[in-house]
């Protein structure tokens, strides 16, 4: 049984309908994301203050070139990238947990991120050998699409291996994830040997996970995939709710189960792949965010998915602010921040759930 933070029924009224509470939570999260965005725009090594910029804007004064570059070419693409990546990671976590019917499924933990990363590295290193014509057409989109494809293949393998007759074995899923992660890591290691200096620098960035390389160009390549995945996710909400009762019950409720599973796997792969392509491996967002939200407003995916997108976006912005402030003027890779904050929360989830995770 799940130990719950509040009593049997306290906290969600006498009816057990938590949709009002979910709506309030979502509104609060919108405010949270806006505040985090403003804070993120005002934070950075360059010492450009948002207040000054605002004052100038109100008085109609021209911004200096420096201010304009820092705000619009560095901080704004970084802000948008952070929001999209955070939303994508949290939503792909929530969708994957719904698909696997297990709150511990997360693209980062079960190797989907590693698979996407391997494909991205492959694209970086081997992309140089592609005919120039193809390279010119693929351009900036090569890496995000490769990552998406890698994430898709990994998710498919994972699902095939760990799900029998509609039941997912947690142990098999986690072990298969370890195997896939190790395999991806080893192959990535081999690629490091044949990479040149520039490629090596690009590769190092995958391991750590960072928003520092965010630019309009990278954003333009990955954003469409992430936005598509984020728009597709809410369409899965009813089906994922039905799936919580089991595949048979979902089908009897009118869910086209197989089609929905395919769409869910595509969504997870697209969101994770594109996020990994722009920011490398940022962990724990996908597991911590949906879990916290389920505690507050329940597991109804119609509310959980949009709320996860918001909380994921806001938390990643916060983590990014911390990563920029903590050893300023240098900055810490954001993957380290999310791991330091998310790791203990993940352990806490495991402690509380001990005994009900059926292996």
């Amino acid at each position: 049984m799940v130990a719950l933070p509040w009593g049997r029924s306290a906290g969600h009224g006498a009816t057990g309908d938590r949709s009002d509470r979910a709506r309030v939570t979502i509104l609060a999260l919108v405010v949270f994301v806006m505040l985090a965005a403003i804070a993120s725009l005002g934070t950075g090594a360059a010492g450009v203050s948002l207040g000054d910029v605002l004052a100038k804007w109100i008085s109609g004064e021209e911004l200096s070139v420096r201010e304009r570059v820092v705000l619009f070419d560095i901080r704004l693409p970084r802000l948008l990238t952070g929001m999209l990546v955070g939303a994508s990671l949290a939503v792909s976590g929530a969708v994957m947990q719904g698909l696997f019917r297990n709150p511990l499924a997360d693209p980062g933990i079960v190797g989907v991120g590693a698979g996407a990363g391997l494909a991205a590295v492959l694209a970086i290193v081997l992309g140089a050998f592609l005919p120039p014509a193809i390279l010119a057409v693929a351009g900036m989109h090569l890496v995000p699409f490769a990552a998406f494809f890698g994430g898709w293949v990994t998710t498919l393998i994972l699902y095939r291996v760990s799900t029998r007759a509609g039941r997912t074995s947690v142990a098999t899923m986690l072990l298969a994830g370890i195997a896939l992660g190790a395999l991806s890591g080893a192959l990535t290691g081999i690629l490091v040997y044949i990479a040149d200096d520039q490629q090596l620098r690009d590769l190092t960035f995958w391991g750590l996970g960072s928003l520092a390389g965010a630019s309009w160009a990278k954003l333009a390549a990955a954003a469409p995939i992430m936005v598509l995945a984020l728009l597709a996710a809410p369409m899965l909400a009813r089906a994922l709710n039905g799936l919580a009762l089991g595949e048979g019950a979902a089908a009897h409720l009118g869910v086209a189960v197989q089609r929905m599973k395919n769409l869910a796997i595509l969504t997870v792969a697209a969101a994770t792949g594109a996020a990994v392509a722009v920011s490398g491996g940022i962990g724990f967002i996908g597991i911590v965010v949906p879990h916290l939200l389920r505690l507050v407003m329940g597991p109804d995916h119609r509310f959980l998915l949009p709320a996860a997108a918001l909380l994921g976006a806001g938390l990643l912005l916060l983590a990014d602010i911390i990563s920029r402030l903590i050893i300023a003027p240098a900055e810490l890779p954001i993957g380290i921040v999310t791991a330091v904050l998310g790791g203990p929360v993940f352990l806490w989830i495991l402690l509380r759930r001990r005994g009900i995770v059926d292996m």
Partner: protein
Amino acid sequence: MLEARDISVTLGRKQVLHGAGLSAQPGAMTVIVGPNGSGKTTLLRAITGDLACRGTVTLNRQDMRALPPHALAERRAVLPQASVLAFPFTVHEVVRLGLTGRIALRPDAAQLPGRALERVGLEGYGARFFQELSGGEQARAQLARVLLQVWEPVQDGIPRWLFLDEPVAALDIGHQLQVMHLARRFARAGGGVVAVMHDLNLTAMFADRVVLMLDGRVLAQGAVREVLSDQNLSRAYGCRLRVSSPPAQGATYILPQAAEMA
């Protein structure tokens, strides 16, 4: 009218149904009985589309398996034997999952989960967590969800169906009777009910039509008095059984004691 013909199912290497079939009418309660392993649940699962099978299943002469899931969900609801819930939903939220299709558009849709819970005797349970209920309470909460899915037994003149797999297995006698009355009420209101049952006495009390199974085949089907005979039951269950009627009401009941005494 629901008709299943020549249903054969193979699970692994073993063929568990050998050309079984049944017919059921809306407005009546059809109960499938038989000993353990006779294929009752398998037949129900083949009819509801949970299992791949050979043979045909038609609803008003329409191939049931050709209907898309959402259309099928408007026509019938299925109560599974037991289910494990993946996330901590409240009882209300579980029941609300039954609000699919046109019923979700009704102006009073928000009140319906509560009313469905009242019907199964779980009023006031909405805010409890489903996983914290006892087995019998979980079964009734699931029944409320299923009832909600086909809330009106007849919609636009088309009867809807309830498929119940051992609906009373986990229940005490009071709730067994309550659930059987609910199913009967659904049938009396024009809907169709097909249930798999273990309890022969409840079957005799509530069924309009009985399908008796043995070894993956239908041994007999028809009215209660014809099917639940000494001979049929003794053969199906492999022990001496004797059917009796209390003189006052003329209803049928089955006591193992009676057979021993004869």
